[in-house]
């Protein structure tokens, strides 16, 4: 019975190929759009969550300067007021698990005949803990290196690639701004940051070395910013309060006056970014779903025309013994076949489109079996939903009126 129905549905659809094709096209485009948009949306969410976890968790950044200072708007970090000693003091708070001062800069690095311009961070070993970063080869420099401002460096994967190629960089000497530095460790790969920068294009050196030897500055002993990690997510509010209080005390800020530093909750910031990505991917999906809906309405439209055209055929079938549900199933089957075939083609189109977006536009896409299954289910439901009304209309035709229809 079912096989026979499939054959008949196929035959009926074959009788008007162009129309069947156009009806299907609506489905193909709808499903294709949904699959593509889901792939792009999930891809965006994936890369955001990747860079969030590569950033480290429960993070604060403390910048020099206030967001408004004395009525004059200052750029954050403009006048350095933070010191290595501030970082040291913060790290002793019970809410903090690690705190690292950072003196950033850009420098030309040379090894043998290779040279590379990269970002150099003067910091402490705690930076690795804060950023949840590990050493792939060798060792991190030690606190004693910071104390005595030795010329040692940990280098990122991109720097290693460009300077050393396949050579092992550990225990080699590179030159940063002409001075020799011993590479003690190779950092593990971290990938892109949230704003799309390559985090592996970095060299870490002791903060004191950076201050005294690499980047001479007019503000002796200061650092550009401090990165701090709270012991847990629950401790974040308390940590923020305590850090503010401690730094205000250390900087002798009077009661009621603006701070000369700013504590920012980085984790909250990136969560906002993640939230925005989620909203974007939902929006993409919603827009794509509208095209699926339009495809469904197309099916309904054509099915209604088809029922009218085949009224006489329905009459004949009823006269020789078809029950209402036989007629219902016959038309429903056609709608479902159109949906399923259209959906399959749509999935192919969507996956192809996603692959093309990835290949040509370098967009991260994520295609899961779940999203394809979802597209299939939706398409089948669309077929049943929009096919049902015309099919029921066919099934409820009075036999004698259907037979008399010219």
């Amino acid at each position: 019975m079912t096989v026979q129905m499939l054959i008949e549905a196929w035959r009926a659809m074959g009788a008007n190929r162009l129309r069947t094709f156009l009806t299907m096209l609506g489905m193909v485009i709808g499903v294709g759009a949904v699959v593509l948009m889901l792939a792009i949306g999930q891809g965006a969410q994936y890369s955001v969550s990747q860079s969030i976890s590569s950033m480290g968790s429960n993070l604060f950044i403390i910048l020099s300067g206030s967001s408004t200072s004395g009525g004059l708007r200052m750029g954050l970090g403009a006048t350095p007021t933070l010191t290595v000693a501030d970082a040291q003091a913060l790290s002793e708070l019970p809410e903090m698990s690690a705190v690292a001062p950072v003196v950033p800069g850009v420098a030309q690095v040379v090894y043998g005949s290779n040279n590379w311009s990269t970002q150099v961070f003067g910091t402490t070993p705690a930076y690795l803990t804060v950023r949840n970063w590990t050493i792939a080869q060798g060792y991190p420099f030690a606190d004693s290196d910071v104390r005595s401002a030795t010329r040692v460096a940990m280098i990122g994967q991109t720097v290693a690639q460009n300077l050393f190629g396949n050579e092992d960089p550990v225990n080699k000497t590179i030159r940063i701004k002409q001075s020799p530095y011993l590479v003690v460790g190779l950092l593990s790969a971290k990938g892109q940051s949230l704003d799309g920068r390559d985090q592996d294009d970095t060299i870490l050196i002791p903060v004191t070395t950076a201050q005294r030897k690499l980047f001479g500055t007019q503000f002796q002993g200061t650092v550009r910013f401090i990165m701090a990690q709270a012991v847990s997510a629950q401790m974040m509010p308390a940590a923020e309060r305590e850090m503010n209080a401690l730094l205000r005390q250390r900087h002798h800020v009077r009661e009621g006056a603006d701070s000369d530093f700013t504590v920012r909750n980085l984790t909250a910031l990136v969560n906002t970014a993640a939230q925005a990505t989620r909203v974007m991917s939902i929006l993409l999906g919603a827009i794509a779903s509208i095209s699926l809906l339009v495809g469904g309405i197309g099916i309904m439209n054509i099915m209604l025309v088809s029922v009218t055209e085949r009224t006489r055929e329905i009459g004949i079938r009823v006269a020789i013994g078809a029950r209402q549900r036989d007629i219902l199933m016959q038309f429903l089957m056609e709608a479902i076949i159109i949906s399923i075939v259209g959906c399959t083609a749509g999935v192919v189109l969507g996956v192809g489109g996603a692959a093309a977006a990835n290949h040509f536009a370098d967009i991260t896409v994520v295609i899961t079996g779940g999203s394809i299954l979802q597209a299939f289910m939706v398409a089948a439901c669309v077929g049943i939903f929009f096919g049902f009304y015309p099919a029921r209309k066919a099934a409820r035709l009075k036999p004698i009126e259907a037979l008399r229809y010219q």
Partner: protein
Amino acid sequence: MDPIIRIEGLHKEYETDAGPVPVLKGIDLTIDPGEFVAIMGPSGSGKSTFMNILGCLDVPTRGKYILNGRDVGTLNSDQLAHLRNEVIGFVFQGFNLLPRANLEDNVSLPLVYGDVQKSERIARANDMLEKVGLAKYAKSLPNQISGGQQQRVAIARALVNRPKLILADEPTGNLDTRTSGEIMSLFRQLNESDGITVVLVTHEPDIATYAKRLVKFLDGSLIYDGEVSEART
């Protein structure tokens, strides 16, 4: 023997914009198994309306209709569908074959709704095509054969489920005289050798002579019921 058709006080009115129009005005008729009945009457006298009610395609406004021992008025649409499938074979003036299905598929269609297995459907459809002399066209489409041949296919389709009753509304209306004769001989053979009850409508007296009993309609009423030969004189 119980009658296959028993009709008492049957009325049919059509609802029109100008109010209800009575088309059948109190028909009483009993037909026994194995009869061959011709229905005649002028155009518009209600013959087709009557046949549609006999075939359970339409319902009377009033009156009783017992088909094969069952009171049709008490059946739901699924039961009516079952009755049409099992008891009745229809032959229409316009053949009413499915244009896109080949002859074999057309003939086997009632078996599809009777839930018969595919292999048996094909075998029985071909038996029936053989019986009406069209076995070699099994894979042809209806528009590839003549009108007379199409009506034979329609008869094969009516017969395939081994019905007790064949209803034919002007089956020769679209056919020439010679082809009409062949179709009527086929009905007669089905009636005589297979014992199938045949009720057919015609407006040609020559066609009516193939039947054994004649019923005449005039203006929604039954005005004659008797031997075919007596009616001619």
